[in-house]
């Protein structure tokens, strides 16, 4: 998919145990990402998006079992020791979490939190760190940055705090940003500003981004490629244009259709029937089969593998929806 991928995830599987049952939170997730590329990860709540991000960064292995391979610029991350990982986390790979309000320490000033990150990951001196902190706040669009270094998180609004989080994440000029729903808690107007900012930085610093979201509009506007997850597996992935325009997997199509756009007002919306399966009791065949209108007998007994169906385009379905000429592009 990319010429020189910086991140290659292969057959990533993460399992949690609840009592004496195993919970397959993530199964066989594979994708790769080039410099300056933005990869989207979409799916319903509980489909494994956050766990995928946490597994990439080696956080999930503390409370679950992670298998498969994550290669970062050629190095295998899954077998690294904590000490080795620490050198990569924050410096080369940064992460923004889902809850912006709780990820900043309320007792430390914004300036302290920024310079601490710089101290941990760079060799800058005290003065240089301060300058860099101001530069970063400026970069993420916080006005009068120098005077706000001494303020505490509660003195910032929600959008501002998320910008501070981004400033901290990007302080050490990472090559990869893992962003878990960075704008879900924010208004559309601020969401637009934050996404613009991430895109601009990805471009300027040629930084790769993995963006988790459940908003298909956000995917359309910011990502180059996208993977759609269902019950812990990727069911479809490819270039955003192709996947959103001509979804080939019935689940992707269902997701697209349930967004109220271009439907007559006040009419019934399409909705995927039923509810996602419990990870404790996944169906034997295709996990989507109980909700799928195209399901055949084969779907109930065997699991469809993720397969190439067009250049750069994969889907896991025995009966993919028809392609259109658009797909060839």
């Amino acid at each position: 998919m990319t010429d020189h991928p910086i991140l290659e995830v292969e057959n990533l599987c993460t399992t949690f145990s609840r009592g004496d049952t195993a919970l397959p939170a993530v199964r066989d997730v594979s994708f790769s990402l080039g410099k300056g590329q933005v990869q989207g990860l979409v799916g319903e709540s509980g489909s494994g998006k956050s766990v995928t991000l946490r597994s990439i960064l080696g956080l999930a292995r503390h409370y679950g079992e992670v298998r498969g391979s994550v290669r970062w610029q050629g190095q295998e991350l899954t077998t690294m020791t904590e000490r080795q990982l620490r050198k990569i986390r924050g410096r080369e790979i940064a992460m923004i979490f889902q809850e912006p309000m709780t990820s900043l320490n309320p007792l430390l000033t914004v300036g302290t939190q920024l310079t601490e990150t710089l101290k941990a990951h760079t060799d800058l001196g005290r003065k240089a760190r301060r300058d860099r902190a101001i530069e970063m706040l400026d970069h993420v669009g916080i006005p009068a940055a120098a005077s706000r270094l001494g303020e505490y998180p509660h003195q910032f609004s929600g959008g501002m705090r998320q910008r501070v989080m981004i400033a901290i994440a990007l302080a050490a000029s990472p090559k990869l940003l893992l962003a878990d729903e960075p704008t879900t808690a924010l208004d559309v107007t601020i969401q637009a500003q934050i996404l613009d900012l991430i895109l601009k930085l990805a471009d300027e610093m040629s930084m790769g981004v993995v963006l988790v979201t459940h908003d298909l509009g956000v995917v359309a506007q910011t990502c180059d490629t996208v993977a759609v997850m269902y019950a812990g597996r990727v069911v479809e992935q490819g270039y955003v244009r192709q996947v959103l325009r001509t979804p080939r997997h019935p689940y992707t199509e269902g997701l697209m259709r349930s967004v109220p756009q271009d439907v007559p007002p006040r009419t019934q919306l399409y909705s995927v029937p039923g509810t996602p399966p419990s990870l404790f009791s996944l169906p034997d065949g295709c996990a989507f089969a109980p909700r799928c209108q195209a399901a055949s007998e084969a779907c109930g007994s065997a699991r469809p593998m993720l397969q190439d169906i067009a250049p750069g385009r994969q889907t896991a379905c025995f009966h993919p929806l028809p392609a259109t000429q658009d797909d060839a592009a």
Partner: protein
Amino acid sequence: MTQTVMKIEDLHLSFPVSRTLLDVVQRKPGKSVNALNGVSLELKQGETLGVVGESGCGKSTLARCIVRLYPPTSGQIHFDDQDIFGAQARKDRTYNRRVQMMFQDPYSSLNPRMTTGDILAEALRVHEMRPEAEIAPRIAELLDLVRLPQDAAEKLPHEFSGGQRQRIAIARALAVEPEVLIADELVSALDVSVQAQVVNLLLELQERLHLTILFVAHDLRLVRHVSNRVAVIYLGRIVEIGDSETLFSAPSHPYSQALLSAAPSLDPDDKGAAIQLEGELPSPLNVPPGCPFHVRCRHVTDQCRKVIPELRALEGRGEVACHHAEEINQHA
């Protein structure tokens, strides 16, 4: 169809901010959050009025005022020609039956220790909706209405998913056969496909039971889909109100224009000419004088900084609160 069921007039509400000891020592005057600054609107029989705006603009406060959870600082709400905050009406619990509210968080709006059956039975009993013998069959009917399986009655809230909990909340509201439903971010906490199910249910029930709905949400696409009319709120004031399709296809107020253009399109090639709003919502602690939007508006003039624009009808559009609405919309 166009009979007015509820009339809100010049509603103001400010929450006093508790003063710190330092403030008291320094003799700073007590501050207050001005959540609503003169909201007037009418709800018409059988319509859905959508309410949109950035977080903190006063949407929930308005909703909670309507169901008397907050008493307003000034202004009135008339329902059936009766002032709902009047002494007479306060004693009367029928208002609470006729106007129902559904809440945003499906995990906190149901008592975790009561089964679905208990929750519905309580509503039916308190308002004496049915004689004792008919309560059980009515619960079955309500579960059917919101498409929950019959065995749901014996289950506790934690055994349901978010979407199902919102259905229970809808069933509870419908149990007392209300005329008006206030839905504050009813589906915001749900996934798109579940959202669609709950919205469908709401639309269908509205048709069947002739309900009037105030639909508060920040998802613009969804509001456009369900509403007949839409009100755009900014800093506790309505800046534009009008027919949903007209407003969404051609917003007239500079704030509505910016807000609507910020919603990301589903089409990857439609990068849109998003109108970037400068800065953020000013704090409701000190609402700017004149037009509340003037600090972020591209069309600001001196007049805007001094005079508060009133809501006024704009030809071919809805009502807009902007001094320069005509000029701005000429070019469009």
